[in-house]
């Protein structure tokens, strides 16, 4: 059904938007060997760019050669430009020439090989390449008489340091989080996985923003077809801008019309590394600390990095608490509405009496109460997030007072409904990764319960489950390993097996090389025979 609407929509959009191809980049021509031409071209392209720095200089002693260095102020590390480019060009080159003498033609090679003391130096032959390099914080050196420009990596700009991410806080475990800088993020990954098989492939997406996007995967563990598929999907993105990984997520997800996410995200390098080690693919985007992970399964929402760092017993309990919280959060308003308006016979008498007492004199039907309170809660939550922190507290106090106390004492709303909504709200925080999903499911179920009672709940559950089992994330069934059932994989879903027992990776994803470690790793005290010998 969704596909159909999708087709119609996309056709409409096509008709709307002017189908003309954008004017091709007019700078795709090669560099000229005349420095003046190049200078004019570059300065005209960067017209009105006040942060552009073009430093013209003459290099060499015998044959004074015209050259210029171009970079964007603020994107480069100034000390590098000064100490490792400008100074060698002006001073050291002169010495080199004084010693041996270099012909004008070889000066470029000389500069590249002997003069520049910068880690990474590339050559650029087109104007476009020069522009790209300058825009991404590199310094370009153009020399008269050469149609090849040198590109030195001098990137360095003000960044936020590696901090503890606010979204995924842990009690035990690393506290570092990704930053907005792609290089820092890849470095964080490299530091977790010191392995040549960790591949980081970068591509630029976004015609205007030219955002660096990096596909990280562990060769040998990842399914190569998945990597190809991710690359294909990324290559197909033809858009103006990528400002956050959320843009990419919506361009590559499997089920764009589903309320369920088929692409995961994380802000923590240790989580990203764990996903890589399970055979998943991580997509890092420059400019955001949120990395995408694919394939993403529903059950991942119930796993927390801390589960794996603490001992298995409590981790297993906590996992089940998350399941319980999820079900509470999704079902409790619906069940309350269904029971009070359709099936009072299902309530134990003592409970019915207190519920009936609470409902006495309330003006609205239970369904209206449930939906209204739900909306008010969402408003409070949104206000709490958006407001500056000091005001946010005031909002929560007012909200708690108005909704918790006054609405009940004023007789507008029954006290059980307040309890139900509070449980719902708190429970949805236990599984933060899919709190938006629970909100949608809750709404569907509550409305259905308000119309059809328990029958409606069952209808909605059947519908949602059918939808969930039909979903795929990069070809991996969304509800696996539950459906289709994969018993070995349940060791990390229904329980959290101790590490020595988790000998295989998730088969559905890491099928390529499922064995992670030796079997029989259970620690044991030395046996009695050994003790006798000593």
């Amino acid at each position, binding site marked *: *059904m969704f596909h*159909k609407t999708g087709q119609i929509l996309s056709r409409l959009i096509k008709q709307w938007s002017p189908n003309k191809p954008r004017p091709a980049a007019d700078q795709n021509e090669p560099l000229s060997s005349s420095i003046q031409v190049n200078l004019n071209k570059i300065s005209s392209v960067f017209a009105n760019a006040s942060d552009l720095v073009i430093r013209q200089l003459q290099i060499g002693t015998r044959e004074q050669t015209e050259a210029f260095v171009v970079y964007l102020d603020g994107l480069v590390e100034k000390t590098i430009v000064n100490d490792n480019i400008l100074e060698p060009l002006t001073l050291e080159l002169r010495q080199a020439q004084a010693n041996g003498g270099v012909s004008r033609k070889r000066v470029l090679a000389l500069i590249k090989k002997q003069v520049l003391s910068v880690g990474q130096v590339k050559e650029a032959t087109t104007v476009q390449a020069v522009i790209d390099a300058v825009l991404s914080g590199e310094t370009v050196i153009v020399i008269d008489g050469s149609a090849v420009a040198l590109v030195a990596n001098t990137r360095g700009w003000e960044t936020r340091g590696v901090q503890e991410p606010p979204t995924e806080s842990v009690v035990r475990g690393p506290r570092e989080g990704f930053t907005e800088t792609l290089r820092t993020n890849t470095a964080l990954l490299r530091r977790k996985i010191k392995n040549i098989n960790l591949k980081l492939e970068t591509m630029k997406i976004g015609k205007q923003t030219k955002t660096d996007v990096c596909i990280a995967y562990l060769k040998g563990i990842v399914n190569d077809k998945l990597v190809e598929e991710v690359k294909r999907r990324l290559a197909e993105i033809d858009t103006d801008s990528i400002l956050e990984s959320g843009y990419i997520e919506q361009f590559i997800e499997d089920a764009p019309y589903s309320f369920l996410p088929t692409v995961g995200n994380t802000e923590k390098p240790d989580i990203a590394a764990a996903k890589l080690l399970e055979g998943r693919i991580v997509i890092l985007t420059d400019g955001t600390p949120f990395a995408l992970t694919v394939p993403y399964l529903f059950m991942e929402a119930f796993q927390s990095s801390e589960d794996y760092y603490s001992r298995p017993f409590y981790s297993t309990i906590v996992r089940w608490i998350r399941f319980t919280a999820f079900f509470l959060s999704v079902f409790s308003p619906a069940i309350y509405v269904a029971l*009070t*308006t*359709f099936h*009072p*016979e299902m309530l134990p*008498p003592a409970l*019915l*009496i*207190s*519920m*009936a*007492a*609470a*409902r*006495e*004199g*309330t003006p609205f*039907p*239970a369904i209206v109460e449930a939906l209204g309170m739900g909306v008010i809660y969402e408003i409070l939550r949104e206000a709490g997030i958006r407001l500056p922190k000091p005001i946010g507290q005031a909002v929560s106090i007012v909200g708690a007072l108005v909704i918790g106390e006054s609405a009940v004492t004023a007789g507008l709303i029954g006290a059980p409904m307040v309890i139900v909504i509070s449980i719902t709200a708190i429970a949805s925080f236990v599984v933060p990764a899919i709190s938006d999903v629970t909100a949608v499911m809750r709404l569907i179920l509550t409305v259905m319960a308000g119309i*059809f*009672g328990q*029958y*409606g709940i069952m*209808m909605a559950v059947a*519908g949602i489950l059918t939808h969930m089992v039909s979903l795929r994330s990069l070809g991996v069934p969304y509800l696996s390993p539950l459906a289709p059932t994969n018993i070995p994989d349940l060791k990390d879903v229904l329980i959290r097996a101790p590490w020595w027992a988790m000998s295989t990776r998730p088969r559905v994803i890491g099928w390529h090389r499922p064995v992670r470690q030796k079997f029989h790793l259970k620690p044991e005290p030395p046996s009695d025979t050994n003790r006798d010998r000593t």
Partner: protein
Amino acid sequence: MKRQLIAIFIISVLFATSGCWNRRELNTLAIIMAIGIDKAPEDGKIKLTTQVLKPDEIKAPAATGGQGSPKGVWVLTSTGHTIFDAYRNATMQSDRKLYNSQTKVIVISEEMARAGVRPILDFFDRDHELRRLSWLLIAKGEAKDIIEAEHEQEKIPAQAIESLVTASGATSMAVTVNLHEFLKMLANKATDPFASRIEIIAEEETEKKAAKKPKPEESQQNGPRKRMRLTGAAVFKDDKLAGWLNRPETRGLNWILGKVKSGIIIVKSPKDENQYVALEIIRASSKIIPEIRDGQVTITVEVEEEGNLGEQMSDVDLTTPEYFDSLERRQATVIKNEIAAVLRKAQKEWGTDIFGFGDAIHRKFPREWKKLEKKWDTEFSQIEVKVKVISTLKRFGLHTAPAGTKRE
């Protein structure tokens, strides 16, 4: 396209098959807790008394300022030619729809029960709202009195009645029969039904005996307060009330049915015939073994019982093997007497098979039963019933001899 049409069709069918659909808010319902059925003064009419919950009264605990215990229920009386008719007539007094699903107790008056309960119970069996787990009780006297009676501990008298019924295992001197069990016995041709008996004891009586002081004003205003009490069982012949069992006889019935859970057996002390010994029943079970020899039916009722010495009033240590043996024998005698009493009444006085003897024969001798079935009504009174009681005493509590007495 075809698949989508099919999907849409299936989904629309789902919406149409929701079955009996009715949206009712809790605050539009009059939740019935108990029902009483009497004969109306008008000829051939039925008087229905319902105990309806007043949620508001229960919500605020003493918020109005302790003027005695506020009544948590409202008693509503209506009449009609049939039960259903009476129900609908009640809505002319109640602004809310009478809601039956939480009914705990159905009380039928003695008069109605004597006339036959089958016509009455049809509605309760047929209506989808009523649940068959409601307890069925027969009132000695008017059912309305029971429904109107208050209870000191519970704001909702129906809950008190329910607790009385469910807690009767402590003595095993009452039967617990819900609507479902009763209807099952009624449907079974071989077995005759029985139900709990409930009666009113006016507070005055007990008060007067205890103290002659007049009670505070409120009791005078309200007239004598009524209390209810479970007293034995009501025995039916087919659907008509045949008679009552007193409390020991009721326990006799429970012995045979194997339904004794707990209770106290009082015997005389073997040392001192003027003092009593209380034996606590710990567990009991029974077997009904039918036998047919030369066309003669005999039933053997085997009761196994295990008890503890719970209390003794004589001043001697009874925990010797000799005394224990003697107590066991006395215990068995009491059980036998209780069983004999109920057997005599059921067989000789009323001829009602409330024990399920017929069923036992049917199960063991299906062929012979076919012949026996038709004349079972008369045959039942004639059959020989042997009672075998195996009763043991196990433990004697925390001490052996009462304080200050010596072991013999």
